[in-house]
């Protein structure tokens, strides 16, 4: 069988650092991050766009990295779970809240939850329980039953609001 493997040269930023690579056209962004850049925090749970484990931020928007080709990330800024903490390793308020509220068990869905909610909370700093649930309705978690994830997101939003008031 013919199996032409076209490759493309791409340049983008990942977690703030410039990256250049030669990628096959069929390589999806999730595999690119995991295999080419060894950023294995991004997880693949279904590879058909439903589970949300592979969610990363592209130019600030939550995107399923299994549904986007690496070539489509050309010129974009990609943020993965590895890029959520501060440079000195200080966890983001959301990451802290996940620990505080036991919002993860096996941790497999967690990177996608964190990236989805990071983007969501930036745009919706004071959400309701219902809005948080809708924000993660495209992220499947088999372990936690979601309740502690919702609590963590609400707590992180609350902490941020309190910080801004001061």
């Amino acid at each position, binding site marked *: 069988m013919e199996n032409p493997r076209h490759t493309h040269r791409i340049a983008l930023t990942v977690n703030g650092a410039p990256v250049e690579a030669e990628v096959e056209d069929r390589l999806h962004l999730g595999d690119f991050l995991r295999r080419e850049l060894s950023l294995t925090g991004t997880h693949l749970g279904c590879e058909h766009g439903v589970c949300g484990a592979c969610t990363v931020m592209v130019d600030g928007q939550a995107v399923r990295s299994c549904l986007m080709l690496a070539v489509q990330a050309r010129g974009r800024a990609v943020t993965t779970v590895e890029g959520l903490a501060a440079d000195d390793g200080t966890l983001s308020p959301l990451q802290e809240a996940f620990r505080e509220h036991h919002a993860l068990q096996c941790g497999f869905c967690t990177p996608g939850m964190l990236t989805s909610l990071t983007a969501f909370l930036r745009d919706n700093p004071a959400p309701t329980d219902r809005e948080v649930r809708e924000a993660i*309705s495209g992220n499947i978690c088999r372990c936690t039953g979601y309740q502690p994830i919702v609590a963590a997101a609400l707590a992180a939003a609350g902490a941020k609001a309190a910080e801004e008031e001061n």
Partner: protein
Amino acid sequence: MGVRYFGAEVRRVEDARLVTGNGRYVDDIELPGMLEAAIVRSTEAHARIRSIDAAAARALPGVHAVFTLQDFPPEYRDRPMVQPYPAPVLLQPTTQYPLAKDEVCFVGQAIALVVAETRHVAEDAAGLVAVDYETLPAVVDCREAVKSGAPLAHADSPDNIVARLRVAFGEVDAAFADSAHVFEERFLQHRGGCHAMECRGVIAEDRPHHDGLTIISATQCPYLVRRNVAAYLGRDEGRVRVVAPDVGGGFGPKAGIYAEEIVVPLAASALGRPVKWIEDRREHFVTTNTQRDQEWTLEAAVDADGRLLGVRGRVIHDNGAFVPYGLLLPMTTLTPLPGPYAVPALDVAMEVAFTNTAPNSPIRGAGRPNAAFAMERLVARIARELGLDQAEVRRRNYVPADGFPYDTGQKFRDGSPIRYDSGDFEGCLDKVVELADYAGFAGRQKAAREEGRYLGIGVSSCIEDTGVGPYEGATVRVQPDGKVLIRTGAASQGQGHETMLAQVCADRLDVAIGDVYVMAADTGAFPHGIGTIGSRVAVNASTAVFDAAESVRDKALSLAAERLEASVEDLEVEDGVIGVAGVPEMTVTYGDLARQLAPMAGGALPRGFAPGLEATSYRTSDGMPTASGSNIAEVEVDIGTGEVRVLRYSVAHDCGNMINPMMVDGQIVGGVVHGIGNALFERLVYDESGQPLNNNYGEYLLPIATEMPPIAITHQETPSPLNPLGIKGAGEGGTIPATSAIVAAIENALEPFGVVIRSYPVSPEELCDLIDASGA
């Protein structure tokens, strides 16, 4: 000795790595020179393989090998996988060949393994392997499979019966003869697939001249994998090492031994390079063990007051195409009967049937949710027929609080009685009745009906036998720097064992929890283990850690007493520093003692002490602690669309003393949601020819955040008398009663229509049909 951590909501030590993307799951591991595999799987539910043509696949650039069974060394070509749980009652213990020999019995069965430079190339090549099938008749429904003359799931077997089981005690016929009422119920239970968010995965590397075969697998039971791989390959267990890294959820099916755990090592050995295979979600749907169908036909003999006098009936259990896990799932269906109820006589028989579908093994709760559903259905029927309240009918039937230890009447295989060690079922019910505002429900229901809305409430009670033995072990070792290392075989798939075991150990030694760390699930680092199944690790491994830490403490105190020239009774420990009461300057640390007990050349061991400040224990619970609980679900049913909304969900749970209530609650909430998924969403659909029809998350529905109710939890702590910590397992008690609570609530909402639900998951279409059929 102070208690600082036991019972506290200690934040998990695992989380620091998991929230930053630093977890290390099997697919995150890269070994030098590693190749990647993809598997050619059967597209037929039942067929004979006429031929396999892999020439085009082998010719593809980047492909290193294509293996069929015939391409392995001759000794493996006629060797099916080892039955991990043999039992005399297994009439047909059939396991599959790691790659199909000449017959395939379910869609997804492995036929060939392609190994290539990358997964992409391996998949390209897998698509080029041509398999010529001769289709054979398939049997898909277990109720058909047990009939004589049914198509055979295996062409050369006499029938489709894997086993016939029966549990019986008491005078059943007399109970029915003397009863005021006899009620019969028939229902079909369907529990779907596993759906851990991480699929399975295996890496194998063979270094025959060095340390032998290493397998990294997303498994719940590394020791079971070691035993079975060594047995299959004919290798010394000492030269087979199995490691479970971070594992992204287990829920039961990752406890077995799978074909890939055999064929990936065989390929790695043949090629002399590490090989990785990662299951994708489509493969997970068709090849990771599922739980699927059971049909129950049950009769209850009841007195005039609604008390159960006897239960009898028959179960047909779908085992799928093979027997990958002995009879553990069927057995765990029968042994919990009759649940929390004191029933004097019982006789239930089960036929375990082959079908041409994915093999079955336990999923969260194993057969216990099925057993609970069965008993709860009977109790619901009694309430309906006799006009009793859902809570009241349960009160009349519970094992009374002063009735423990309680022998159900069933016996284990060794003849010892199945015994509930402790509990207070009515106490739990009282708690959940209050939490759910059960008394106020009638008002809520009435108000809603006036608006044309249908609310319902459902009560469900259960027991959970937890902490099955025979043991789990732990070594507690103080390192020269004073840090404490716990080694155990018990693998974690997210339960938080690292935190839990560190809590128990830190208390026993009086050290800060930050100075304790856990390394687990590596057969090369700890010699013996069982694995993480059946809510057993807290009970077994914590008890071993507790006991080993006690020995370490004793040893440290005896040596400290010599060093400080004091008597052991005068010593006290705080934060790892051992001192003499009242003499603040006289101290020594655990680290000092550990160094003294591990001298280098030229040093000396203190007289009378063995080296190392460490101890190993396999101490375990003296039997299986019984957890229990009652749940109440409140739902709204849209009678126009059949949609069910779960409005609130309340849990009263008793798992004895809790090591970490935050993590116990996490187990319960997650478990309840799994049970709600079983009640409302999760159905694996096969057509009559055995083709799976919904292998994706668009069509196979898992519970999602927007569909889940607020879940409130209250605890009753009835300590287990069987272990020094008074603990019981907590991993499955959320799931076990949840499905029946939801179903009961739906029935309650639809009482005006007389709707009775006889199968789950309950789809909106089915509810609409039931409402229509009622004619109300």
